[in-house]
């Protein structure tokens, strides 16, 4: 049969997948066995006990539920704002003419080369002066602002292939710039917008640095994970649980939306390409 992969290829793929999944499996095992049993490695079977005590202890000692909701809120709001603003900005930069368009675009895209660590101190002072420390805005604003560098770049690149004919047809049909964006451009650029949304969600969900520095009362999961890991106890079982809880959502998001990563441009003006 044409198009069917040979057996050896499947075998090699399986092997690689297994190697990839072993650490994850190890973390799961770590989280359900007492530390004493797994000191020399989670695969040791000298004595074998299954226990959920690590899960209970983490739950009791650390504000996991609160952290979960904080993470969901921060990632959700940041992702929503990025998905809302990026396509509009990319559209404006690509199709509209206004003063300083080129300069503005260069400034925004150049944030790309700026490592996050560079902005930490200035931002810290700014938030402190503005009284925004320990406020979710202190994290959401840089999340969204810094995301523009890559997200506008990504969506604008997608728009390079967007048929100009459609924009002109919309003008002929009586659309202004906003109506053109709403009725013609946006419905045809959903795949890069989803891709931006997924990436932004994964990164904001896993972000550690900014919330660790700017938030105190309610902190997201990666910060909690860092606190769990930061104690000097032998708490591999607790770390495993925290890691699993932190990873679970991004993993689900990735599995559900993985097709969006591969989706390309589907907008054509109908001509024979």
């Amino acid at each position, binding site marked *: 049969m044409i198009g069917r992969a040979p057996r050896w290829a499947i075998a090699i793929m399986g092997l690689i997948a297994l190697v990839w999944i072993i650490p994850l499996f190890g973390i799961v095992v770590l989280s359900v066995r007492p530390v004493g049993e797994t000191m020399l490695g989670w695969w040791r079977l000298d004595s074998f006990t299954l226990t959920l005590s690590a899960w209970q202890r983490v739950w009791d000692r650390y504000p996991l539920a609160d952290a979960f909701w904080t993470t969901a809120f921060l990632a959700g709001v940041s992702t929503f704002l990025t998905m809302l603003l990026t396509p509009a900005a990319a559209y404006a930069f690509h199709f509209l003419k206004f003063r300083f368009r080129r300069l503005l675009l260069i400034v925004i895209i150049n944030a790309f080369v700026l490592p996050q660590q560079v902005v930490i101190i200035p931002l810290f002072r700014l938030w402190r002066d503005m009284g925004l420390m320990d406020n979710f805005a202190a994290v959401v604003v840089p999340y969204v602002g810094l995301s523009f560098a890559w997200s506008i770049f990504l969506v604008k690149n997608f728009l390079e292939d967007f048929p100009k004919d459609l924009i*002109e047809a919309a003008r002929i049909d009586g659309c202004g710039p906003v109506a053109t964006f709403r009725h013609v451009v946006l419905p045809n650029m959903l795949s890069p917008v989803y891709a931006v949304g997924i990436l932004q969600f994964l990164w904001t969900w896993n972000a550690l640095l900014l919330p660790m520095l700017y938030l105190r009362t309610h902190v997201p999961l990666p910060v909690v994970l860092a606190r769990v890991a930061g104690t000097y106890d032998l708490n591999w079982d607790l770390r495993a649980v925290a890691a699993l809880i932190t990873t679970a959502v991004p993993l689900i998001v990735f599995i559900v939306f993985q097709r969006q990563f591969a989706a390309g441009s589907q907008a054509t003006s109908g001509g024979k390409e």
Partner: protein
Amino acid sequence: MSRIDLVDLNKSYGIFEVISGLNLSIEDGSFTVFVGPSGCGKSTLLRMIAGLEPITGGDVRIDGNRVNDASPIERGVAMVFQNYALYPHMTVEQNIGFSLRMAKFGKTEIAERVSEAAKTLQITDLLKRKPAQLSGGQRQRVAIGRAIVRDPQAFLFDEPLSNLDAELRVSMRVEIAKLHNKLGATMIYVTHDQTEAMTLADKIVVMRHGAIEQAGSPAVLYNDPANMFVAGFIGSPRMNFLRASASANGVVLAAGPVLPMPVSDQSDLRVGIRPEHFIVQGESSRFDMHVDVVEYLGGTRYLYGTAPSGEELIVEARDLGSVRAGDSVPVGFQPDQALVFSGTGDRIRTERQ
């Protein structure tokens, strides 16, 4: 239905002038075709009329009103694009009705007008489909439907048939002609295909380098071209241009024959003769043609070869026995069907013409 006037129209991109000082009147209800080689500015001109391209200088007037700064919708023009430009996420019905929706028409009125347009174009059974599920010809119909549903002042077509295959192109051409008869609307059509121009137009505007070379009815352009460029552009296969010079007896072709035409002394002339105006093996044979290729088209055939002067020649041979590649055949023409041009390409008219 409206009259369009272009007055001293200019268009430049920076220092590069695309259209300069162009004047043209397009009568109400006429079918005008802009034709010319690539880059001659014909599409730019159409887009300036449409309101998609800003005007550098001069005026576009619709029914006497200056519309230079008006949006396409204010000008009341509809346009059909070369690549159809159908909105891929909308059904055919939504595509056709989109401009009405933007103009805040009521739902029932939109539905009525869409179904009427669909009936005119025989695409009623396609209304629920998306553009991706349509063939090229069907997409073109939808694109036209999107234009007619608005009942515009003028229809603008930008090479609408160039993406279709040859057979469909001919049938859509006929459809567009029918549509023009039915609607009686002003239509402007851009093409580089002279056959489309000849068959559709009331008036053909031949353009080159952003200027009008000649504008007139197809018959005028065919029989009485103003210069060598128009003569060569209109008519298929292309007109033959043979080298000649003026003498006391008239115009002497390098290939041999002499045209009894009084032309003031110019050494560098061109004589234009259409392939279909040659008479093969007739009484008036004037020179022998060496045949390289015979192209048989059923009803007629074209001989490709060289004149005694070594110039390339295309001759139509309608009813002729057997001519094979390599043969030499005598060919001639009626002197009054030959057009004389100066070396720079301008037409030199004799008294009879």
